[in-house]
């Protein structure tokens, strides 16, 4: 799945503070503070956009970064966050609420 549709796990505490997303995971109470580029991807992850659409339409439009670098970094970020249960990915568009799972069961991090 090199160009997945991605969505935030809706069972997380999140906010954006001074342009940077903050995520709190339940139970293990880990906290993540994303930089502005990762925040851009995180906020756009609504289950309705492919990763390349987010990189082209948001990341490359808002930041001075070449597309290949942006896409490679974005793929690594998505893989890492999917493995941690923070993001969910699929091959077709989906409603994040419909796949909302208890974080404890979806996480391996």
């Amino acid at each position, binding site marked *: 799945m090199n160009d997945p549709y991605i969505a935030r796990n*809706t*069972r*997380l*505490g*999140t*906010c*954006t*503070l*001074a342009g940077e997303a*903050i995520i*709190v995971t*339940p*139970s*293990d*109470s*880990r*906290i993540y*503070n994303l930089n502005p580029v990762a925040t851009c991807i995180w906020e756009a992850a609504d289950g309705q956009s492919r990763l390349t659409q987010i990189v082209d339409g948001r990341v490359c439009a808002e930041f001075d970064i070449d597309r290949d670098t942006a896409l490679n970094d974005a793929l690594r970020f998505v893989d890492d966050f999917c493995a941690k249960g923070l993001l969910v990915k699929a091959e077709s568009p989906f409603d994040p609420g419909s796949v909302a799972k*208890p*974080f*404890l069961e979806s996480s391996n991090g």
Partner: protein
Amino acid sequence: MAELLDRIQERALQLDVLLNLHIDLTYRCNERCVHCYLDHNSRDDLNLTDLERVFAQARELGTLFLTLSGGEPMLRRDFMEILELACGSGFAVKLKTNGTMIGDAESSAMRDLGVSEVQISVYSDRAELHDRITKLPGSFERTLRAIRLLRSKNISVAIADPLMKANIEDYPQVRKLAEEVGARFTIDPTITPMINGDTDLSGHRISPSSLRFLYGDPTLVGDPQEFCRPVTPAADLMDYVPCSAGHSAAYINPHGSVTPCVQFPLACGNVRHESLVTIWRQSPVLLDVRSIRLKDLPSCSSCDLIAGCNRCPGLAYMEGNLRGPSSIDCEKSAIRFQRVPSGSLIQISMGPA
């Protein structure tokens, strides 16, 4: 984690972002704890529609950490709906409860909804003493059962141990209990005056010698010498804000009244009549609280313990002056930084038989 969280809290404080919101869902309770500061007969709680609106407004203001408390919040028939709404709104939800109403279904729901932490007070490892403090027979067993149930489902639990004269000697055993069940352990020696300002509860407060003993316990404070060493003031200390209350934290009582903190009953507006957004951004009372810097505190700014003092502006307000000292915290600082004669927890009086 702690450093990152501190940085985030500091940034929210600088930007006056309401990162931390505490809502008491009701003052009703099935326990009658001897030290409790609430009026349990109060009614007319915010309803689900009110709370849904407040949650949306809090999200608009950037709230991340939402604490739901009471009274006993689980006494509300719609408690699970409120919890689902809160967790689905994107908050990191912490629940304060006595645990006596948590069964298998409730604990499973808390896990599935993603509750960040459940805080439960345990006063002693002795059921008899715990129940004597809560005035609810059987509460210790029910509370402990809930803690074990939550932990069996991998839900974070914090055991809070409010320290009073009656239970001061039991905290090492409560801490051991917390370790056994895998819960975080916290103590709090502050007995808050009644919500109407009545100080009748102060008789439960631990003695200065007990406080001194706590400050010397390395399992609580780390290195006691380091903990009790006077803090060197930063060059710009006088420009610091006294507390996060009203800057990055606020409280809403069951009737909708907004105050800077649960311990700071200065009414700033009511979410039944105004948007939380409007109150947070425009309330003259909140703006006044927000304008205060350490240099604006007439007594405290000239105190040489100010750099290390955890003065609570809410307690100062309840003593009569928002900009005045909080005598409880004056005493704590004097003991912590050893400005009073040393003593021991164990006091022996001798005299003729």
